[in-house]
């Protein structure tokens, strides 16, 4: 029996101790008419070898394409040590550290993680993670609604330059709590949030302004101005950031006069493989003033009976297992193992290493853009500076181009037309530090060929000045 150690003799022995004659008798409280029949749609058991053969085949089927898609998930190098340690059974097969004395490894690691995230974001407090970047933003919005005493509106300003899936997830999670999300358009020339449209909301009652940096287009937003504007209008500033970018870019805690109030984002670039979109982890940091509004696990340093330093879950009175219907969130587990990997990853790279990764990715993307721009009709659309991801205009239908590229095992980027009808000839491309010169040249050559075969198409977009 797979993963069941009982011998026949033991089973008999145990049944005798219990005082029943068969295992089936142990289900005597289940009404007979509810007992289920054989599960015919479940296939017969496989040995580890058989399932290995199947999984090997399926994993190979998806190929190792040359990937120029970013759009919220980035293909960075992960040191071998990261997952070698994270998958040690002592981390991998432990549970939430409720028994603190038997979980000091996980607890100290989470405390170190919180320390690293607050250092990266320049914020006061970090929790021990949420599910992913999108759900972390939803929690940040709920937190802002609880935490902003100056606003009664439950309305949030959300720029269109934010990741489209994040915008959808936030709506899906908060809409039943009477929270309204108001979209801010973007400036078609710069690719940043439209400051004139923003100014139109001055003096209105909003709970918070969401500020992505870089935004979904890779474009750098004027975060200082946005943060100060939010504060001047009695809103909280919620930053959505890429943690690797933070090694290079100004951290949210230092945006504008007072800094952002809440910072969240996708932790994946810190040691999590692309892995079809998960598991990743969402991070959430805030100012000291908002700590009691924070959802999720938080680890605190304390002492034991002998005065020795130790770590424990703290502020648990916020959480569902204590407060039930009055909890700050329904969240129970976080993404502990992903955070374990991220902590090891950040320790290995350090600030200098992360900065080198960020710079190399940015530099690769620049190189790629240069190569692609040599193709007739391919242009960078937005004028603002960008970080490691950029929107280009193609002189041919994006969908068809991507399909042709994929046939050559090149994943050429993210088709923006799916989510932005106004950008239906635009492609979002990214080249992390892992993409080689050769891969980029191959991409450019294939693209040029495909475009020349498909012919030019008139473009509605105004090209960059």
């Amino acid at each position, binding site marked *: 029996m797979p993963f069941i*150690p009982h011998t026949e003799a033991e089973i008999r022995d145990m049944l005798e101790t219990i005082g029943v004659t068969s295992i089936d008798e142990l289900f005597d409280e289940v009404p007979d008419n509810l007992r289920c029949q054989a599960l015919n749609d479940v296939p017969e058991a496989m040995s580890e070898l058989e399932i290995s053969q199947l999984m090997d085949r*399926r994993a*190979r089927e*998806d190929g190792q394409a040359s990937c120029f898609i970013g759009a919220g998930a980035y293909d960075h190098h992960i040191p071998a040590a990261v997952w070698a340690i994270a998958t040690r059974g002592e*981390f991998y097969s432990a549970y939430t550290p409720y*028994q603190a004395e038997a979980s000091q490894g996980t607890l100290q690691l989470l405390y170190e993680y919180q320390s690293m995230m607050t250092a990266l974001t320049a914020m006061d407090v970090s929790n021990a993670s949420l599910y992913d970047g999108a759900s972390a933003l939803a929690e940040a919005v709920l937190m802002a609604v609880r935490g902003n005493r100056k606003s009664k509106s439950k309305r949030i300003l959300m720029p269109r330059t934010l990741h489209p899936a994040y915008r*959808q997830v936030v709506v899906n999670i908060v809409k039943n709590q009477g929270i309204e999300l108001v979209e801010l358009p973007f400036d078609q020339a710069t690719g940043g949030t439209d400051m004139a449209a923003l100014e139109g909301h001055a003096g209105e009652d909003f709970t918070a302004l969401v500020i992505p940096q870089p935004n979904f287009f890779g474009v750098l937003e004027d975060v200082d101005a946005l943060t100060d504007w939010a504060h001047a209008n009695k809103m909280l500033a919620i930053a959505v950031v890429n943690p690797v970018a933070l090694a290079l870019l100004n951290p949210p805690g230092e945006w504008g006069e007072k800094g952002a109030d809440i910072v969240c984002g996708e932790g994946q670039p810190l040691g999590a493989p692309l892995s079809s979109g998960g598991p990743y982890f969402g991070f959430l940091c805030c100012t000291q003033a908002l700590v009691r509004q924070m959802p999720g696990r938080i680890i605190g340093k304390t002492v034991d009976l002998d005065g020795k330093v130790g770590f424990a879950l703290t502020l648990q009175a916020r959480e569902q297992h204590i407060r039930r219907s009055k909890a700050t969130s329904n969240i129970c587990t976080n993404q502990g*193992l992903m955070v374990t990997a991220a902590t090891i990853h950040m*320790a290995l790279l350090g600030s200098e290493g992360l900065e080198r990764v960020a710079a190399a990715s940015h530099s690769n993307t620049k190189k790629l853009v240069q190569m692609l721009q040599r193709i007739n009709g391919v242009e960078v659309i937005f004028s603002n*500076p960008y970080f490691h991801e950029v929107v280009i205009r193609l002189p041919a239908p994006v969908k068809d181009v991507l399909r042709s590229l994929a046939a050559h095992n090149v994943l050429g980027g993210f088709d923006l037309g799916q989510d932005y009808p106004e950008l239906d000839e635009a492609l979002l491309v990214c080249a992390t530090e892992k993409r080689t010169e050769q891969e980029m040249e191959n991409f450019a050559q294939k693209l040029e060929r495909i475009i020349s075969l498909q012919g030019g198409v008139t473009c509605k977009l105004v090209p960059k000045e």
Partner: protein
Amino acid sequence: MLIFEQSKAGRRAVAQAPLDKADVSDIPEQFRRKKPAALPEVSEMQVVRHYTRLSQRNFSIDTEFYPLGSCTMKYNPRGSNALAMLPGFLGRHPSAPESHSQGFMACMYDLQQILKEVTGMQQVSLTPAAGAQGEFAGVAMIKAYHDARNDTARNEILVPDAAHGTNPASAVMCGYQVREIPTGPDGDVDVEALRKVVGPQTAGIMLTNPSTVGVFERRIEEIAKLVHEAGGLLYYDGANLNAILGKVRPGDMGFDVIHMNLHKTFSTPHGGGGPGAGPVGVSERLIPYLPVPMVDHDGDKYIWLTEEECPDTIGRLSAFAGNAGVLLRAYIYARMLGKGGMSRVAEYSTLNANYMLKRMQEAGFEAAYPDRRATHEFIITLRKQAKELDVNTMDFAKRLLDYGMHAPTTYFPLLVPECLLIEPTETEDKETLDAFIDAMIAIQAEAESDPEQVKGAPYSLPVRRLDDVKAARELDLKWTPDTH
């Protein structure tokens, strides 16, 4: 010692970052970081040694018996992990086209089919990232269903007082009020009390079966009828699915929507508190509202179902397709169990729990529900020990750690005083169960002869009992260069 305290200015794990520092002068100064983040500066070996040592300060399934009730801490097959980490799976970008995703999508489709079959539900969406997100999705679907019928006066979700805290919290996140239903003295939901409160304001009821008190809800069909007749829907919290896998199906009990905790029943690792996976399954009438994305098969290839194909969906709950890597592990486990292995999970976890309960009763421990059959878990109450010896459940739990075993769940469910919720799982052998019972007997003897010994435990761990009050009052949530 913290990793930060091992830091030396200028030290680095050089091999792990690009050797050349690329030029980023095109990014204007106003956007650039002025001062590097205060991350540790350490060598690769220091990092490996530090975190390896930290790992050794944990209890885990791989090293200790971990009978944490309601958490199903069973063996996590290494094979599941190794195969989910094949490069082809790790390297797949979530936005990769279907042409480069057929292998992965085949696994997801198969898993949907298997979960449908074992739960008796009509359709499954794998996307919720954890049990609590599955609960949210389930309640949001209930709301979408009522809203679509313009049945908008239903503003209440019924939850038994024994329920997991996530149940009421999830209902509130969907905009519902929560009304608690008492549990009767026999551990079943008090059906008479339910009858009084169910009505036109009832959107649904959230139940765990077997319930969190470790017994099978015998009047489940009656409850289903009562709630359905009032126009409400039934939500099944799959936390205890391990107890009935392959024996009874939530769909057959009358549930309209369920979530499964794959990190419990399908043995994916708990990872020190996540990631989990909380797929949802639904009856016919809730199919249109399932969260996206899902995988379909059109006869010769696998395709994604998204907002476009499912216009009434409650939408996506994470940026991509949920915790895909966890889903792969669950799929591999399910294939190794196969058709016959599913019911064995329920059978042997139930055998183990009933064996332990019987032996503990023989040793003088008090069962919370002595007249009931244990399911995959059971509750012991130490109220007598607390009253007569002044040694409480937490003391027993901490002392168990000295005996090399993780404590069972303590003080949950809230309605049983001084309780231990014990769930051995099917993967533990009889010797381990016996060792646990012997340890409990030994601690009982200590509690009688030298209670202080038990109250001061643990002694053999990296730290003794921690000051939680200090942790909450004098918040120290991070290392900083100035304060340390």
